[in-house]
């Protein structure tokens, strides 16, 4: 892995790569080594400790500190300037022509991702102290959490595609272990198997994409690939369809990991895991891996507009598909899961229209408020003694105040109400979509925003407002959660309020734009995008007003039907509404029968195919082999009877043989 590179190869590129200094090398290695050590120590010693989190949580706090320092250096101090730093720890696969180093890569995008991953990771670790306090196997939980942190950090820091793939699989493994943490529950085991298998389907595409990259440019290192592959395309060495194909294959992997349609089926079922797991993995970090992959590969995608259109289409379709299901779900975590699917769809739509920075911005803010919402829901579940059905909650506002206020802030944020975080990022996504010419994406996005606001406040209403439908036996025991759980909630709520403004202002030249511009510059150049000045009084202002208006409408509808503070809920109106569209309601409630479709196609039909293949194998192939064996046996049995042991029989044989030979000779000689 040589040092400074290619400033002349791609015209106008300012993204150069330098070797990392020894301090940075050490720090980056520590980021990986510490969680791994935490995992191993927890696994070995955790069972004997009364408080297993003693190993895991401080490790992550240290990791967070290191990551924050590095990110600070990169982003605020601009210590890396326009450069990325990279170094190779050792040669991972030296196999003749196929050489893959274990190299780490750090640029501004990495810095942003590190901040998200380690901050939310740390808060979730602290939260888990309280949440899992009553669980006897919590040492396993903390060990797995550390393993997950290691995998995710490796994914974000990796410098070549194969290392990303390895980390990808590790993250999938950690997710599997954590979803199925309560392994004696059958539903949990089914869910983690489903998650792993669906991920695997996406991974096939990812692996094929990596192989395609290797065969075209002969390297998998990020900077080399981003340099060589577009150059090869320009010089005509590879065809356009090859580029589109590679990008689509990479996107296939992203679809699996980030649960886009049709590989979205595993995410709602993954709610079988404990709530901190849902918050960390399935809201804030792992599902963002797909978005990160596509964003990282932006130089490739920018040269394949057809692939980008598909990405946008899949993303926005997932957004509206998932939002439509979230409208009717009864389980509080399911609503949030479908909401995550929907917001991920937004991110992919942003990537697809070419608004790279907007996508990452939304990734950051979504991580904050979705993490907040999940942790809050965990607090609610903890408070009502493990009840997850919203039909049996209600009027928890007075009894769990901190949870209530923080979740309210989260709900406002996700709905896109200014000046909270979601407003800035969502508005940027939709605005860029409209301005870059993708009006259909914008239109669907607006509808989704309406639905998002509506179902979020439906959730709030059913949980915190209105009449209490809580089980009477449980009701007297409802109390606020312990400090280890509420403090992360408060911190996240605070971040939801300020992060948007901090990152998103000033409009048009925001902080996050400044951070990520060097990363996405090559992609924007390839796409030929011209930066237009921000017109607050013009098109941009109109778009902002429209999105806020739509969000407000959704919010008010939710208030009206489900209650808000002292406003009463109107369940009769809800019933009347659902009675008017029974089929739509049922379809939405049953997730549009997609799981049943999968079952039919793959389990039933595939089962038929597999059974016939098995029949063929047993009867025809095995039958042929066994048939040969039994034929040989029977022939042997028959022939064995010639051996009578009697001399006269043999003598008769001699006589007969003599006759045959003599007759033969006579015939041959007289012919």
């Amino acid at each position: 892995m040589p040092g400074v590179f290619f400033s002349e190869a791609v015209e106008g590129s300012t993204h150069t790569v330098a070797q990392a200094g020894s301090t940075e090398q050490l720090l980056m290695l520590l980021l990986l080594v510490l969680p791994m050590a935490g995992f191993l120590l927890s696994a070995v010693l955790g069972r004997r400790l009364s408080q297993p989190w003693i190993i895991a949580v401080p490790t992550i706090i240290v990791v967070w500190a290191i990551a924050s320092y590095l990110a600070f250096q990169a982003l605020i101090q601009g210590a890396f300037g326009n450069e990325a730093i990279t170094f190779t720890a050792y040669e991972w696969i030296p196999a003749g022509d196929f050489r893959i180093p274990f190299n780490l890569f750090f640029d501004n995008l990495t810095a942003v991702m590190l901040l998200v991953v380690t901050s939310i990771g740390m808060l979730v670790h602290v939260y888990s102290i309280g949440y899992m306090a009553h669980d006897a196997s919590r040492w396993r939980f903390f060990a797995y959490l550390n393993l997950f942190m290691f995998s995710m950090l490796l994914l974000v820091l990796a410098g070549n595609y194969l290392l990303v793939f390895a980390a990808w699989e590790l993250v999938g493994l950690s997710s599997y272990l954590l979803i199925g943490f309560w392994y004696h529950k059958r539903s949990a085991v089914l869910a983690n198997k489903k998650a792993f298998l669906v991920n695997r389907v996406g991974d096939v595409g990812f692996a094929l994409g990596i192989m395609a990259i290797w065969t075209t440019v002969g390297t998998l290192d990020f900077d080399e690939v981003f340099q060589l592959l577009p150059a090869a395309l320009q010089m005509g060495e590879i065809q356009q369809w090859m580029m589109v194909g590679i990008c689509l294959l990479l996107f296939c992997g992203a679809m699996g990991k980030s649960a886009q349609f049709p590989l979205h089926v595993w995410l709602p079922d993954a709610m079988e895991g404990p709530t901190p797991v849902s918050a960390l993995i399935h809201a804030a970090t792992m599902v963002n891996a797909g978005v990160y992959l596509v964003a990282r590969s932006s130089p490739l995608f920018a040269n394949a507009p057809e692939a980008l259109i598909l990405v946008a289409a899949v993303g926005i379709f997932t957004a509206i598909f998932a939002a439509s299901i979230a409208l009717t779900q009864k389980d509080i975590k399911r609503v949030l899961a479908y909401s995550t699917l929907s917001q991920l769809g937004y991110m992919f739509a942003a990537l697809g229209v070419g608004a790279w920075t907007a996508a990452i911005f939304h990734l950051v803010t979504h991580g904050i408020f979705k993490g907040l919402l999940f942790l809050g829901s965990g607090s609610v579940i903890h408070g009502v003694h493990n009840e997850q059905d919203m039909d049996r909650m209600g009027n928890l506002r007075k009894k769990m105040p901190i949870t209530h206020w923080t979740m309210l802030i989260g709900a406002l944020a996700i709905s896109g109400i200014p000046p909270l975080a979601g407003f800035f990022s969502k508005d940027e996504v939709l605005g860029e979509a409209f301005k870059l010419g993708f009006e259909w994406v914008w239109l669907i996005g607006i509808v989704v925003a309406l639905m998002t606001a509506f179902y979020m406040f439906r959730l709030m209403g059913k949980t915190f407002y209105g009449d209490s439908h809580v089980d009477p036996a449980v009701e007297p025991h409802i109390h606020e959660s312990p400090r280890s759980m509420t403090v992360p909630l408060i911190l996240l709520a605070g971040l939801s309020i300020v992060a948007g403004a901090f990152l998103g202002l000033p409009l048009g030249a925001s902080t996050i734009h400044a951070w990520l511009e060097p990363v996405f510059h090559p992609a924007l150049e390839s796409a030929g995008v011209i930066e237009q000045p921000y017109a607050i009084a013009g098109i941009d202002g109109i778009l902002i007003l429209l999105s806020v208006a739509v969000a407000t409408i959704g919010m008010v509808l939710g208030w009206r039907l489900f209650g808000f503070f002292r406003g009463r809920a109107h369940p009769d109106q809800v019933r009347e509404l659902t009675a008017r569209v029974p089929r739509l309601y049922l379809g939405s409630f049953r997730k549009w029968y997609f799981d049943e479709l999968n079952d039919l196609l793959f389990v039933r039909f595939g089962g038929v195919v597999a059974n016939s293949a098995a029949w063929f194998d047993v009867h025809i192939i095995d039958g042929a082999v066994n048939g040969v064996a039994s034929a040989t046996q029977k022939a042997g049995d028959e022939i064995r009877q010639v051996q009578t042991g009697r001399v006269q029989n043999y003598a008769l044989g001699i006589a007969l043989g003599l006759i045959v030979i003599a007759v033969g000779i006579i015939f041959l000689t007289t012919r």
Partner: protein
Amino acid sequence: MALPQTVPYLGWSWDDVVFLVLAGVMLGSSLMVVLSRNIIRSGLFMVLAFLGLAGFYALMGATIVAAAQVLVYVGAISVLILFAVMLTQSKSGPAKLVFHSQAWAAGIASVIVGLLLIMSVVMTTWPLAMPTPIAQSARDVATLLFNDYVLAFEVISLLLLSAVVGGIYLARKDNIPDPSDAVTRSET
């Protein structure tokens, strides 16, 4: 009174008549050897066959061989066989006990073999053959035996010696166990 030159009424020579009679006797008794159910009768028919054969040798003029045939075959071998029959008493039984189940196949095979032989003999011309047999004296035979074939003669005598010794050894009563007995005993 002197015999007429040829047989009256038929006009054959006496040799031919003798030939036919001897042929009948020989073939008939051979058949009876094979087909007879009583083994003693088979043995006796065999003696008769040997005698017929001796007659043939005499008819051809092979005097030494005729005498040897009578001495060796009739005098020694037939007696030997009859002794063996006596020692291994077996009942004369129905045909099932006498003939194998493969007797029919054997019959057909031997008929075909016989036919093949006869055909090959009849169709071949023997360029060196004279039209009549030429008698040779005993002196000629003896000269040949002790000059040209003396090695074979000595070897034959050794062979006979070893056969006699072997026969005695095999047929004696076993008071000392020997390997062949041990093998057969372990099998049963």
